[in-house]
């Protein structure tokens, strides 16, 4: 009986990037002139270090990574961080200004799905065109033609001119051709943002099927998708690597942190109350240094108001939690007559606590509504009074990750 030997076949490195940098010019006329100079030095072949000329900036600076077959690298960052530039260099479309890229095998790119489509020709003719551009021969395309049409679900319209296709149909056709390519390295640039749910699911299934044999580089702003597919991650910030490694969750947290800002807005104010202080508290009821907490930690806030005009009865406080996409996800129970709230002549103070919060990973903001009177008319409404962040390894689409226990029925 031989014991199970682990798979010791070393997966080969398919993509290797060393010290990659690229600069661009901001001004068009200067850019064209630099283009002429680059042409001359390109033909002559100079090997000097390239410095920044006037009006130039580094689009990407000193990027390093390695990717083996079966690995999926996520590339995230704000708009303008340099992700698409990096993909263009990996694809061989533009030359780097420093560093080296080594790619083995066939490269497939889903950078734009309608590339090469001529609107006047029919879908079938465009399949041949697109396939030719991607490097297939006529025989290859003939063999795969039926599979492509079936994948795109366009049997009925395949002979209609592409200019009459809806954008969803175009996207399905483009993806169908690219997906049949069976590349060694696949580069996906935000292409999955377009297309309906059916298309996105199909894309996922295809990517899942080819992942064991392919090295994938995936660019997206959709964090749940990145979290689901990628096992390595690079977070880019203005061309440089801000975070790199296998901890996809941490990189996504850093990405979210960049977008949190502390602006609040007054929606309605009767002039009766003023919110003086609001803090998020830790387990010792002290103000937290950073407004962050772990999943299943207690969520506690401290509120203090200054009373401008005396109120006949105690007001009700409604605290609503919104997620990063401005969806309302939860609201705290309002206070009743017996709630513990400290009233003085000039101020109102209280701490509100929710035990073991199970919000999923992400950044949340609080809206506050203070109402008064028999019909609860608003006296103060503030949006975005405080932001806080929940940490967890997994990025999940739903607002809540409920802790669950499994047991066997008797």
């Amino acid at each position, binding site marked *: 009986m031989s014991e199970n030997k682990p798979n010791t076949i070393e997966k080969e490195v398919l993509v290797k990037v060393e010290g990659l940098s690229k600069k661009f010019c901001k001004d068009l006329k200067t850019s064209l002139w630099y283009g002429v100079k680059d042409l001359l030095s390109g033909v002559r072949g100079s090997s000097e270090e390239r410095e920044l000329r006037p009006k130039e900036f580094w689009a990407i600076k000193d990027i390093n990574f390695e990717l083996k077959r079966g690995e999926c690298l996520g590339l995230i960052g704000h708009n303008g961080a340099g992700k698409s530039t990096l993909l263009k260099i990996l694809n061989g479309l533009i030359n780097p200004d420093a560093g080296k890229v080594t790619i083995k095998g066939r490269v497939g*790119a889903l950078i734009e799905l309608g590339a090469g489509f001529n609107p006047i020709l029919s879908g079938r003719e465009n399949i041949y065109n697109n396939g030719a551009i991607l490097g297939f021969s006529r025989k290859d395309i003939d063999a795969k033609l039926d599979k492509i049409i079936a994948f795109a679900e366009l049997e009925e319209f395949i002979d209609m001119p592409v200019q009459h296709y809806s954008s969803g149909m175009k996207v399905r056709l483009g993806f169908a051709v690219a997906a049949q390519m069976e590349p060694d390295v696949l580069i996906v640039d935000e292409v999955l943002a377009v297309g309906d749910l059916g298309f996105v699911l199909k894309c996922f299934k295809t990517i899942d099927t080819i992942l064991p044999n392919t090295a994938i580089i995936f660019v997206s702003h959709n964090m749940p998708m990145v979290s689901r597919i990628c096992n390595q991650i690079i977070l880019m910030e203005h061309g440089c690597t801000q975070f790199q490694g296998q901890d996809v969750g941490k990189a996504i947290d850093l990405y979210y942190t960049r977008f949190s800002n502390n602006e609040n807005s007054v929606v309605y104010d009767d002039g009766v109350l003023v919110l003086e202080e609001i803090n998020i508290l830790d387990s010792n009821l002290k103000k937290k240094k950073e407004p962050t907490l772990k999943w299943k930690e207690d969520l506690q806030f401290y509120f203090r108001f200054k009373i401008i005009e005396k109120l006949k009865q105690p007001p009700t406080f409604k605290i609503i939690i919104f997620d990063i996409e401005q969806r309302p996800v939860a609201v705290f129970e309002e206070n009743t007559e017996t709630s513990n709230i400290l009233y003085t002549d000039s101020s109102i103070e209280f701490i509100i606590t929710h035990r073991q919060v199970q919000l999923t990973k992400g950044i949340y903001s609080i809206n506050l509504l203070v109402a008064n009177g028999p019909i609860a008319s608003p006296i103060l409404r503030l949006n975005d009074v405080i932001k806080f962040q929940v940490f967890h390894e997994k990025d999940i689409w739903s607002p809540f990750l409920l802790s669950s226990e499994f047991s066997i029925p008797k």
Partner: protein
Amino acid sequence: MSLETRVYQKERTIKFATLLKASLGDMYHSRFLARQLAERDIKAQYRQSYLGVIWAFVTPLATAAVWIFLSSSGTVSLSDTGVPYPVYVFSGTLIWSIIVASINSPMQSTQAAKGILTKINFPKEALLLSGIYKLLFDSSIKIVLLVLFVFMYGVGFHWSLLLFPIAMLGAILFGTTLGLFITPMGLLYKDISKIIAFGMQFLMYVTPVVYAIPKTGIMKTLMSWNPITPIVLTARDLVVGFTPEYLNYFCVVMAVCIPLLFLGLIIYRISIPIIVERLSA
């Protein structure tokens, strides 16, 4: 299972010879793609047009018609060319249009493919090859018309007519070589294509397209030295059955073109990435 390895870095560490081999290799491998691109463009051009293929030769025909009229009505008196004037003029304008088209072809094909150049990696030589396929298509239509003319005006069939395609290929070779050199700059600055269009119009008058080379004078010197002259004259002589007088010059021009063509291909290959990053698409 060997995988093709690609290395991208800033220094051009590859020698000219390797680049040339790669360039010609890519051109050979991209035959199917080039044919697809050419078919796609030709179909798209003529699908929405009623007159369709006629537009291919309307310009040389119209220019010829104007000159035939000017000459026959006595407005302009031209020296005797030894051949019925309509045949003389039409063969001239035809070859001229082929030369102009092949000079413009590399730049036009690359310009039109801006969309896919910035998004997908494919052998760029396919663009050049598809341009040549389109040229051959247009030229074959023009040849049919020329042969019609030849028989209509009683020049009759000569065996040398069968060599005419060689002269035409020579014209395409010459034009493509020139076109390759102007493409990189022409894609960056629009002035270049305008200068070429402008310049070619003038150049037609120092080439024996619509009139023969005079016996003496400054025009004789200019037209004799003009490298396009032997191409036009050899082509025409082959059509009408004269022995080509400028054959030596023609062969010299062709011999010079071939290494220049290779150089142009290498420059094109090196400059495409540099231009792609400056192109707006």
